[in-house]
Every structure is written in structure tokens, then in C-alpha cells.
């Protein structure tokens, strides 16, 4: 049984592949989330990024995962979805 693809049950009006959301052309009027995933010194880097964004008068909300080893807790995921328009996170050391 191959589960790498499924037959489309619809009238095929929508694209089979779902495109990523388009990146905003400007941060004007948006709220930017800064997600620290608890990578070492990620907080230092991200805090600098956050302050640079705030210097432009753009609203920033800060989030932090408890551990780099696990996916973000549901509450953090939901807060990000509800509260911000774009997210910046640091993935590497």
C-alpha cells in the first residue's frame, strides 16, 4: 500500500501542492514574533534582532521554548498563531 500520494477526491479546482504563505513586503503595521528555541546564545542574537526591529517602531512579542530538544508546547504554538503575523527564530548555535 503506497501512502506517498493520494488520489484527489475533489473537483481539482485547487492546486495539489499547497504554496507557502507569501512573505510580507513590509513589516509596517505587523506584529513580529521572536522565538528563542533555547539554542545556546540564541537568546543573545535574537534579543539584538528584536531590539533592531523595535527601533523601527514595529511591535515585537518574545517567546521561548523550554528546551531545544522538543517541539514547542501547544500553548506557545497557539499563542504565536494568534498573536503575531511573522516569526523570527534562530535554528543554529
Amino acid at each position, binding site marked *: 500500500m503506497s501512502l506517498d*500520494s493520494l488520489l484527489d477526491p475533489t*473537483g481539482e479546482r485547487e492546486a495539489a501542492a499547497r504554496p507557502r504563505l507569501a512573505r510580507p513586503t513590509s513589516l509596517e503595521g505587523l506584529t513580529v514574533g521572536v522565538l528563542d528555541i533555547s539554542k545556546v546564545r540564541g537568546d543573545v542574537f535574537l534579543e539584538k534582532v528584536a531590539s533592531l526591529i523595535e527601533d523601527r517602531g514595529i511591535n515585537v512579542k518574545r517567546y521561548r521554548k523550554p528546551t531545544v530538544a522538543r517541539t514547542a508546547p501547544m500553548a506557545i504554538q497557539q499563542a504565536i498563531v494568534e498573536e503575531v503575523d511573522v516569526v523570527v527564530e534562530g535554528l543554529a548555535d
Partner: protein
Amino acid sequence: MQENGLVVVVKRDCPTCVLVAPVIQQLLEQADLTVYSQDDPNFPDGMDGVADDTTLDASYGLDIEIVPTLVRFENGREVERTYGWDRAAWEHLTGRDDLGTDLPAFKPGCGALNQEQDRLAELRIRHGDTPMVSRLVPLGAKEDAIEACFERGWSDGLPVVPPTQERVLAMLEGTTRAADEVLGLMPSNLDTCTVEKVAINAVMAGCKPEYMPVVLAAIEAVLEEDYCLHGTLATTRFVGPVVIVNGPIAQQIGMNGKGNALGQGNRANATIGRAVQLAVRNIGGGKPQGVDRATLGNPGKLTYCFCEDEEGSAWEPLVVDRGLAAGTNAVTVFAGFGLQGVIDDKARSPEELVETFATSLRAVDNVNKFPGPDCILVVCPEHENTLMEGGWDKARLHKELMDRMVVPAESVMRGTHGMAEGVSTKLAGKTVSKLVPTGLLIVRAGGGAGKFSGIIAGWTPGTPESSRPVTKIIKT
């Protein structure tokens, strides 16, 4: 495949193939012979050059049904084949007269692996020999197939069976109708509804292939102009398609028309109704918060399907009322919702019971709402017995109920019972009927114990401008 010479297809798990291994060795020594082994490239033992056909691609290409099969090619074309061990046939085919002289003259073969259902489906898909033309939607490497169906908006809110090519191919085996047959244009998008698209949705609903003829008939029925699928979708009222199955097919596919007929627990009932709704949602785009504007909806919009308890009833079945012969396999679709219970433990005569039925019917939607929607009265076995013992058949019940649907307008006029809802004051002095003349269907279903019948109310009075029940013969 082969220009000239012989091809033999064998498997180790076949006593006849094991028996003829020495014969194959004989042929290998003198003839241009290709040996394909379906299950073990080391079989026959000690033989060099056996072609590994554990993928079964060669066997599929040769359309092998039985092993061993011996085929002779000339100039690239098959000219002769024999299967099993039949010394005379093998000698005729090879032009030899000394094959397996110490073996019995005849021994039948075994089934070929490429004919096993799951393997055959896999081979047909790999070789592109399927009738499906729907596009394949790729899943991410770590994407869960059931979750993917939710994500893509294909679900009614419950998990669906992921529509793989294998499952859809198997579903299409449940009908003799061509996959590309067009059943109609599915509202509201008016996209083409093919047998294949229905099969995909039937897979997702959890149907067995043998349900397909019923699902297809139900889809054809809702696509009829009379059913008014677009209107019943776009309405703010409660309705969805209620599917009632008549005829021997109901028992053949294991439907339930007895205890809990309108409830849960029967796969055919549950999945046929769900397949209809998923097809409407996916093919036609009829989704809640989209075209489907229902204020409350009803739980039956997940699935609402049952069969009439024909063998348990003395009455003629619904199909006869719908103009077909008793015993006809047919579906009737009705834009309906919910179930209004009708309880009468005390009636011992038809005259008493009919008053309960009539009063309950007159109360549908609002006691002051005249006319009301078409209705199905589902009569339980104990209530049927009360009627039959009193000498009433179904036609008599229908007539007596319709007579009781007519009331003085003043009794249901605006303001009556303290309600603003009601018939116009302009009708003072006249009578009004709760049901239009075609507005009542009677069906017998339910368990043997309990004086509990029910009313499935519809959308609006069944007029040509509205929705009317549609009956379709099931093509088997």
C-alpha cells in the same frame, strides 16, 4: 519479451512446479528456455540462470494465471501455452517425446502470485494499467495520511480512510460501470462527478466495494433536478440527504433495517450515507461555512442511510409507492433531518394510533406552520402490527393520515397558541393542509420491541420549485 524459444514460470511454493523441476532441467539442456521464479530465484534448486521474478513484473506481462505455465514464442509472438503439468501438452509444445517419463501424466498447477489481489493491484498501478485519471496529491515524507486528509479539507470532521490508488482500484471493482462514466455535474461547483470520483469518496467514507452500486445510485438520485441539491445545500434549514435502500441488495451487503436502523453500528448504513455526503462536500464543494449555510444542520449530515425492513413487514415496500415493482433494488433520497419520535404505548386500534401519528405530523416544524415540509413516517413493527390487526394496510394508513392533515385555518393562524408564527389571517374561513398531496412517505423499519415510530421531516413542501424525493434503480 522473448523473440524465439520457451518461457516457463514457476514458484517454489507449488508442488507441481517442484514435480516438474527435472523436466525444466531437461529442457534447459537442449532448448532456448527462460525460467522465471516468482517466489525464490534459487528455485528450481541447482539450476543456473533462473530469472528472478519476485517483483512479478514478467509474470504480469505474460498474464500468468497458473504455475507452472510453459509458453512458446516465435518471432516475438506467443504461439502456444500450457499450464500445470500435462505431459502430452508439454511434449506437443516443445516437440519432445521424452519429458518426465517417470512422472505422472498429469498434475494440476497452483495459482500464480501475480493474480493475488493485493499483488495484482500493486502491479496494475506500477504498470499504469488502471482506469484512474484523478491527480495524485503527494504527501510529505513525514506526513500522516489521515491528518493530510484533514489538512486538505477532505474530511467531514471524522477521520477518513486515505484514498490510495490500491483502495480506489479495489473500490472500482465493486461496479461494472466505467470509471470515467459521468453521473452528472455536482452542485454547487458543478464539477464533473465521475464514477471514479465517487469511488475515491467511497473509500474515504469506509465503504466496501460491494456498496458501490448503492452509493452510485444514491449519487445519481441527489443529482436529479427534483432533489434540488444546490438548494438543500445552500439553505439555512437543517436538511441533508436521507438515503433509503430497498430490495434484496440491502441484505446482500449487510444493511440494517431492524433494531437501531437509524442509529449507529452498521458499516453499510453508516458508510453509504457518509460517502454521499463526502462526495457532495469534495466533488461539489458543499462545505459548512461555505455554500452550506445551515443554521444548525443535523447529525445526519455526517451520514443518514438505512434500509426498509422488507422481510419483516407485511406491507408493500416503499419502492412500490414510488412506482417500481416489489423486490426492485432501489434507493430513495429525501432531503430530511433528525428524527421526531412518535410514542404510543396505549393504542390498540388503528383508529387510536392514526390520531397519534397525525397529531405528531401536524406538529412538525411548528404546530402553526402550514403547510409543513414533506415527511417520512417510519413505522415500527409493533405499530405495524396494531394497524394490520385492525385491518389497515399501508394505503389505508396513508389516506387516513392525509385526511387528518387538513384543519381549519383559524386553528393554526398567526396568534393561535400565543404564537406569531402561523398561517395568514387572509385564509380565515378556509382549510389548510399540513402536507402537500405527495408530501408523505411511509417506511417500515426498526426492532421488534417498542411502540416507537418516528418522523423524518424534510425541507419544505415538496413542490417542483423545492426538493422532492427521488428514487433510482440500483444498477448491479
